[in-house]
């Protein structure tokens, strides 16, 4: 059988039961050890007391045999009489007295060196019949005879009790674990129920109902937070999706317009018999339209490329000033033709304008922005390029004296295929992708691009993070 991955609930329960089991076993071991130690100590104290008592009851009878007064105890069944194991040896090792409970067995074997010298030596001995006994030894002098008195109780009853205790523990620990496991499973199920609900709801969300959201029961707990995060993700996806849909529709429209023109031109040209020059005119028109189509497709592919590019990929380090001057030199013929004067000023000497980006893409961005400025500049006007180079970013302001951007359209001009409502700017607009590409590229380079509102003429600002060695080493 293939082991299936366990559910989170079961895994949580298993972990919890395992930890609990270890803790309980540790606890049981501690309790058991403590109990055993306490009982053993108790037994030792009993024995010490009993030795003192027994020493008072020993006497030599008329034959000189050591005897123990039996009549001290009121009841003959006193456990001290029944359980007590006792022997007395003289210093040469001869047994002077032996309690009847020993049934002739030696209690402690041969005398050990220094036995009973200091207080009450305790040790565990094994009798011939296999019984373990905890004995204490004590030196006692009676009627001029020095003897070692050994007294002990069998450990059997104690061990038997401890064994019962152990069995009790071993039975109750698994039972407790079982109960804990079942309870844990139930609690986990209850706790994770909102998650299941969320999962089944999320499962139902597809491209067609991206606007659906997860229900948030308690926004402050972990599941609520998760649901919130998930909803934000859905929100972004939904937005991107809607944008994509609109973009596809716009792109289709944008591609269809030249197609329609091609079709109509061809149909009209074929429908009537015309002169060779008329046919040539029609074909040239068609060719120009295919050029428009091609440009739109190139723009779309460029957008796709810029969008797919990973941050850090294809990047190089270069000077923004150099790039702008390169673009200006390409556009110089247009600038000269319209007799526009280009003024570059600002903090050009301070911080270097080194930036890091995909140079060919950024070049296209600058080309689009600067070409727009040139295109909308009136003849003999001034095009201002203001540099502000800070530690964080290079800020380039491109200001023209053209018609400017209508109020409220400062953001929209970056939309794909956006066409301005203003007749002054709608004239001569290109594919409608130039600024979108510029924005995407600048954003990819970690910068921002926007039009400053309320200016006479359009004022486009490009802010691109400066590249420093310090940043590079991070």
């Amino acid at each position, binding site marked *: 059988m293939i082991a299936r991955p366990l559910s989170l609930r079961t895994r949580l329960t298993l972990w919890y039961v395992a930890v609990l089991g270890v803790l309980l076993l540790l606890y049981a071991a501690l309790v058991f050890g403590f109990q055993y130690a306490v009982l053993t100590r108790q037994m030792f104290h009993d024995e010490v007391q009993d030795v003192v008592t027994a020493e008072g009851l020993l006497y030599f009878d008329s034959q000189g045999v050591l005897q123990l007064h039996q009549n001290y105890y009121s009841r003959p069944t006193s456990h001290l009489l029944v359980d007590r194991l006792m022997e007395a040896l003289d210093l040469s090792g001869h047994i002077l007295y032996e309690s009847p409970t020993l049934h002739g067995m030696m209690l402690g074997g041969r005398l050990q060196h220094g036995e009973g010298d200091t207080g009450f030596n305790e040790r565990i001995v094994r009798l011939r019949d296999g019984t373990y006994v905890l004995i204490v030894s004590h030196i006692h002098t009676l009627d001029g005879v020095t003897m070692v008195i050994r007294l002990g109780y069998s450990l059997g009853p104690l061990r038997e009790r401890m064994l019962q205790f152990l069995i009790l523990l071993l039975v109750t620990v698994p039972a407790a674990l079982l109960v804990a496991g079942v309870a844990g499973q139930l609690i986990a199920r209850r706790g994770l129920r909102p998650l299941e609900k969320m999962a089944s709801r999320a499962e139902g969300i597809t491209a067609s109902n991206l606007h659906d959201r997860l229900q948030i029961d308690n926004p402050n707990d972990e599941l609520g937070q998760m649901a919130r995060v998930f909803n934000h993700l859905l929100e972004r996806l939904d937005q991107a999706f809607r944008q994509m849909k609109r973009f596809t529709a716009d792109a289709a429209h944008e591609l269809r317009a030249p197609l329609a023109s091609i079709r109509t031109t061809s149909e009209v040209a074929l429908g009537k018999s015309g002169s060779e020059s008329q046919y040539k005119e029609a074909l040239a028109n*068609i060719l120009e339209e295919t050029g428009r189509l091609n440009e739109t497709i190139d723009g779309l592919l*460029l957008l796709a490329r810029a969008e797919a590019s990973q941050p850090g990929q294809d990047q190089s380090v270069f000077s923004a000033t150099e790039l702008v001057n390169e673009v200006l030199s390409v556009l110089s013929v*247009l600038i000269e033709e319209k007799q526009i004067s280009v003024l570059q000023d600002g903090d050009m000497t301070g911080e270097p304008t080194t930036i890091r980006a995909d140079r060919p893409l950024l070049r*296209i961005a600058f080309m*689009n922005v600067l070409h727009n400025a040139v*295109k909308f500049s009136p003849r003999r006007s001034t095009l201002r390029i203001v540099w502000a180079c800070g530690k964080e970013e290079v800020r380039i302001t491109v200001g023209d004296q053209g018609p400017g951007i209508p109020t409220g359209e400062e953001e929209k001009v970056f939309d794909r295929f956006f066409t301005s409502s203003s007749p002054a700017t709608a004239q001569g607009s290109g594919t409608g992708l130039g600024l979108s*590409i510029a924005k995407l590229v600048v954003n990819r380079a970690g910068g921002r691009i926007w039009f400053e509102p309320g200016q006479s003429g359009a004022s486009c600002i490009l802010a691109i993070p400066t590249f420093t060695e310090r940043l590079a080493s991070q």
Partner: protein
Amino acid sequence: MMRTESNQDMSPARPRILIIEDDRRMSEALLCGIEAAGYDVTSASSAEEGFFLLHRSHPDLLVLDLTLPQRNGLEILQQIRTERIDVRVLILTSHNTVEDRVTGLRSGADDYLGKPFSFPELLARIDALLRRVLPLSTSTSFNIGDLTLDTKTRTASRSGRPIDLTVREFDLLLYLAENRGRTVSREMLASDVWRESSRFTPIDNVIDVQIARLRRKIDDPYPLKLLQTVRGIGFSLREPQP
């Protein structure tokens, strides 16, 4: 070896071009256009037919479409290179990314043109590929009508009067002169004169203005106009036919 021998058999030797292209219309247009440019052209619509013709007629140049119905154009290219068939290959494809270009050139193509291309550019590429074996013209001056260009001193004059040109204007005029009699498309100018890698730039606008300025300098003062606009296609430097 075979190629040079067969070239000697038939004279005058018109370079032979084989087109492998599955799109019938495209194939017809290419055949017609390339033939009009003075080449001996045959076409095939599938890889098998193409191979047959390749072995039979030993063309000098193969114009190969990469997206063919049964076999990928790249496979054909690889087979041509393994069989060591002596033919130059110009690839046409609509997969026009840098990676595709690199794969194509690595597989043994001599040149690569992305669809849609401008036809003058295709002709220019074909000429360039076939010229590779012929000795290059070493002349340092061009004459179109009464217009003279000296590539050594980088000066131009018309009817003996020198024309003051900027660097870019001279480059543009030189490029047009090198392709004299032929039409040069904006794409060609963008990539060969302006060295722009991307087509998505407002470069067409720049080209148009630059051409207008050049025209003012070389044509406006003279009754005979040499620099002509071919609508929808591009520009051409030539003596006008009477």
